């Protein structure tokens, strides 16, 4: 019985140390959220990354986040993950949060693949027993063979991506928050990891996925939310929100 409730959530980012010229040029070219010059403290510019976002997600919801670059998708995921306490509004979570926003937190080049599996597992929120139990399965799935006992700095990019993806897809998902990027692995591995991802997503209670790939979103999500300059413009079925997004893109 999971529930992810956002009530009028707003997130303001203070930008420290932005000098006067930088601030003026910010006002000229707005690409992301809205920028509010803070008159009280002359040193800080404030970026309104999210404004008045309300969502109520229940068991079985698969929500895709759509929007232009800088619309606030990643920020919204991080507010859901309790990384950022909202500046206004409220977030209430019932259930087990399993954020996968950073694929491999705490990865260390000098440590072996096996050590990194344990470290990343611990930092992704698993207990020591859990990750030690899952390690053999992760090693087998990643097809790294004996390389698992060598330091990560000897790995190719593809191998590192395989390892990261294997660890990430081994978590027991509850409320799964995914930022795009988890599919980055080499071609042959791509199918394997996609299948494992799908399997993991099927076990989630709630899924929130941010991505630019409409194909990925269409395959994973049944609902969608459209963000535009920090505001939630449209929430509903995936098709209707997708149409709204295309309309906005065409309007320029």
């Amino acid at each position, binding site marked *: 019985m999971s529930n992810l409730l956002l009530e009028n959530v707003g997130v303001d980012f203070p930008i420290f140390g932005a000098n006067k010229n930088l601030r003026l040029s910010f006002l000229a070219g707005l690409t992301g959220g809205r920028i509010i010059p803070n008159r009280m403290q002359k040193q800080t510019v404030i970026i309104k990354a999210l404004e008045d976002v309300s969502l109520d997600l229940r068991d079985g919801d698969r929500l895709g986040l759509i929007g232009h670059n800088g619309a606030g998708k990643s920020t919204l995921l991080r507010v859901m993950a309790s990384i950022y306490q909202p500046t206004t509004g409220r977030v209430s979570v019932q259930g*087990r949060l399993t954020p996968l*926003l950073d694929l491999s937190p705490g990865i260390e080049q000098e440590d072996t693949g096996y050590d990194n599996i344990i470290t990343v597992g611990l930092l992704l*929120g698993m207990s020591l027993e859990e990750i030690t139990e899952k390690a053999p*399965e992760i090693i087998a799935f990643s097809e790294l063979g004996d390389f698992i006992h060598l330091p990560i700095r000897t790995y190719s990019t593809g191998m590192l991506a395989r390892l990261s993806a294997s660890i990430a897809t081994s978590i027991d998902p509850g409320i799964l928050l995914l930022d795009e990027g988890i599919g980055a692995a080499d071609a042959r591995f791509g199918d394997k990891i996609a299948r494992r991802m799908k399997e*993991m997503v099927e*076990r989630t209670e709630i899924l929130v996925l941010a991505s630019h790939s409409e194909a990925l979103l269409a395959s994973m999500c049944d609902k969608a939310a459209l963000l535009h300059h920090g505001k939630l413009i449209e929430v509903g079925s995936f098709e209707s929100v997708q149409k709204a997004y295309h309309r906005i893109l065409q309007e320029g």
Partner: protein
Amino acid sequence: MALPRVAPGAAGQDLQVVTGVQSQPSEGRRTAAYPIQERDAGPFRIAAWDLIQGFRRHEIWKRQSANEVRRRYRRTMLGPIWVTVSLIVFAVVLSFVWAGLFNQPVRTFLPFLLSGLVPWGLISTIIGEGTSAFAAGETLIKSRQFPYTMLINIVLARNVIIFMHNLVGYVLIAALCGVAFSWASLLVIPGVALVLLNGGWMCLLVAIFCLRYRDFQQMVAALLTIAVFVTPVFYNASQLQGKRTIIIHANPLHHMVDLVRQPLLGNLPSGTSYLVCLVCAVIGWGLVFWLYARKRGRLAYWF
């Protein structure tokens, strides 16, 4: 190769209390979740959760600190023993030169000096490394919610490991110089405990300020350089007379060093030192806990 299935709702949530479980360990040992789910989880409740859980998840900070020490000295021949060796070489050379200054034989001056350098190293490095404790944890803090004091515990644990190496080195040198160890030497243990208790709040305080105001890092470095001379590490407190002794005895760092130094020399530390350190710990933790509770929610925004 199917992974074990978790039935929805089987994560063991107590729906009455509305708290979740962040991870699902095998034998039902729970790791308490971020209490945002509790109806009235105020900042003090969250700060308390942070301090408790940051300590209880010892498998993470023990592992991280051990790995970091190992990593720093990887592929060197001596490993972490380098710290001890360089400290001893420094103390030996300094003793030979300075013993004349203080009119003491090297045999007494060297253990005295080393017994001060070892705890001072512990304290000053804890504070010094605290300046970057949160700043360096940016990727972690932005990847998920977790008790941030874990990062402080990693600093403390790292320095305890180095301290243990130095302690062994000291015992060897002290034995060579004929230091008379006694039962009082066992008081090293409560001494170190009090040092860590105070080091903890100092480290957290410094970490918070240095994350928000980058100037503080410079300030702390400068203050520590001054402090090593205002604290009787290289000299004996009894060598000062008159008004200056007040500065010395008001300096809590002096008492922290003494709580470890005196037992290492076979002496009993003074009751004043224990009192000062305890009072310091109570006041320090009180202040820092209040500050941490107020500012914890903003930390992620300060990067």
